[in-house]
């Protein structure tokens, strides 16, 4: 579990994150959503220690990250996996070497043991024939999957994904979402996903935090989001006319006023 308390972070005079608190539970997909510039990436960078918050606390299973010394942070970081927006794979290494890198650095396993573990995680992300390929030779979706494989190879307790669907087609995005969700439940990881992809919100959002101009504007689950009365959230989630109609239909369906399976044809007439 990751708990953040009253996090504040600014650059110069501009406050990017203003007094944000939340709890990201273990074994759940926790989503941070918001428009570009709302502070979600900065918040995630504060969570993983790439930025130091100006004030507030970040607690990993009760241990205050902000108060840890460099050695303790290093130890904690070995239980953190992160998938970057651009995958951040090492260009000069093959897929296999990329995934093996954390094992080489932090374990004393034999080459055979490491190769077995690499095979396992690559198979888990449905990449079995790409071992010897370089990042430049594989597609965007495959890069994301290699990024996930590298993030989970050391069996992390916490998984962070920064915009995992950016630049991917809707079908591949769904596959990546599904993979993140399955891995979260399978390994009981605390997963935090930074996204503005609405499919992800609806598919994997066990816990969603909506940020607006550096402030936590709304918090809930994907089940609750559809009935939210928060105007800013609704403007963000249901931005298009199509999605607004879909929300209205879903609301009517849940209230029992329509049955999508039975009287849709009648409604369309």
């Amino acid at each position: 579990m990751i708990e953040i308390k009253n996090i504040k972070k600014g650059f110069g005079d501009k406050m990017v994150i203003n007094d944000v608190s939340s709890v990201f539970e273990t074994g759940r997909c926790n989503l941070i959503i918001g428009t570009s510039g709302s502070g979600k990436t900065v918040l995630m960078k504060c969570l993983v220690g790439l930025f130091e918050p100006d004030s507030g606390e970040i607690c990993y299973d009760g241990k205050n990250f902000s108060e840890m010394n460099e050695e303790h942070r290093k130890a904690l970081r070995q239980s953190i996996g992160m998938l970057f927006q651009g995958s951040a794979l090492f260009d000069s290494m093959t897929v296999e070497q990329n995934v093996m890198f954390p094992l080489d650095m932090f374990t004393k396993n034999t080459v055979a043991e490491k190769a077995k573990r690499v095979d396992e995680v690559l198979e888990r992300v449905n990449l079995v024939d790409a071992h010897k390929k370089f990042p430049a030779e594989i597609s965007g979706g495959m890069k994301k999957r290699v990024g996930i494989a590298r993030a989970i190879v050391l069996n992390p307790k916490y998984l962070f994904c920064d915009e995992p669907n950016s630049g991917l087609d809707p079908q591949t995005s769904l596959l990546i979402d599904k993979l993140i969700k399955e891995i979260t439940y399978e390994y009981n990881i605390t997963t935090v996903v930074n996204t503005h992809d609405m499919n992800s919100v609806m598919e994997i959002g066990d816990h969603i935090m909506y940020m607006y101009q550096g402030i936590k504007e709304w918090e809930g689950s994907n089940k609750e989001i559809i009935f939210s009365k928060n105007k800013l959230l609704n403007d963000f989630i249901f931005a298009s006319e199509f999605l607004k109609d879909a929300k209205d239909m879903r609301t009517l369906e849940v209230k029992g006023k329509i049955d999508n399976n039975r009287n849709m044809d009648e409604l369309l007439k």
Partner: protein
Amino acid sequence: MKFLTEFGLYLLTLKGMFSKPENGKMYWKEFMHQCSEIGIGSLGIVAIISIFMGAVSTLQTAYQLVSPIIPLSTIAQIVRDTVILEFSPTLVCIVLAGVVGSKIASELGNMRVSEQIDALEIMGINTKSYLIMPKLLAAIMMIPMLVVISAVLGIWGGRLAGTLTGILSAATFDKGLHQAFKPYNVFFAMAKSYTFAFIIASIPAYYGYNVQGGALEIGRASTKSVVVSCVLVLFSDYLLSALLL
């Protein structure tokens, strides 16, 4: 003021390198890789420059020494001392500042921009230590070796040019090489090459590691690192000459 800020950041970047390696074997592997990149990778250009540098020195010295009272072996003496004292350490290191420096700056800059450095940080790796230290140590180890090779090739190039053009015989050149040789000159050349090696690796590493932005900034950092390295090489060349000669 900006200079002091940059200098402070440079010192902090260097200070950040000193920590216990997460895995000595991986650091050793990276060090050997950098030795190969910096040493073997630059050998070709160093060899070409050195041979021509020595050859041109012989021809130009012979052109200027027209007095019949000066023995021909003096040409070899002048070529030897010029190559050892100045051409090999300084000229070769200025070329290496371009070749090695731009490579280090653009490699680290690209890693920064594409979040590869962040990925390493999140894994719990001291990126300054893992990415900069092996490059710096490899440069400090390989560049003086390249300077020695350059001096040997430079003198050989001078000998070759002298004999091919008929200016002086190989025996006269060899005689000149042995005349009034000061081993201190070699020490001076090595002192310079160690100093330059540190500049050539650390300045581009600082600019590359701290790149902010995109592809344009990587190019700018690379250019700036080469310019600053070259200026510092020349400045320290003067300083060392004033102090040690």
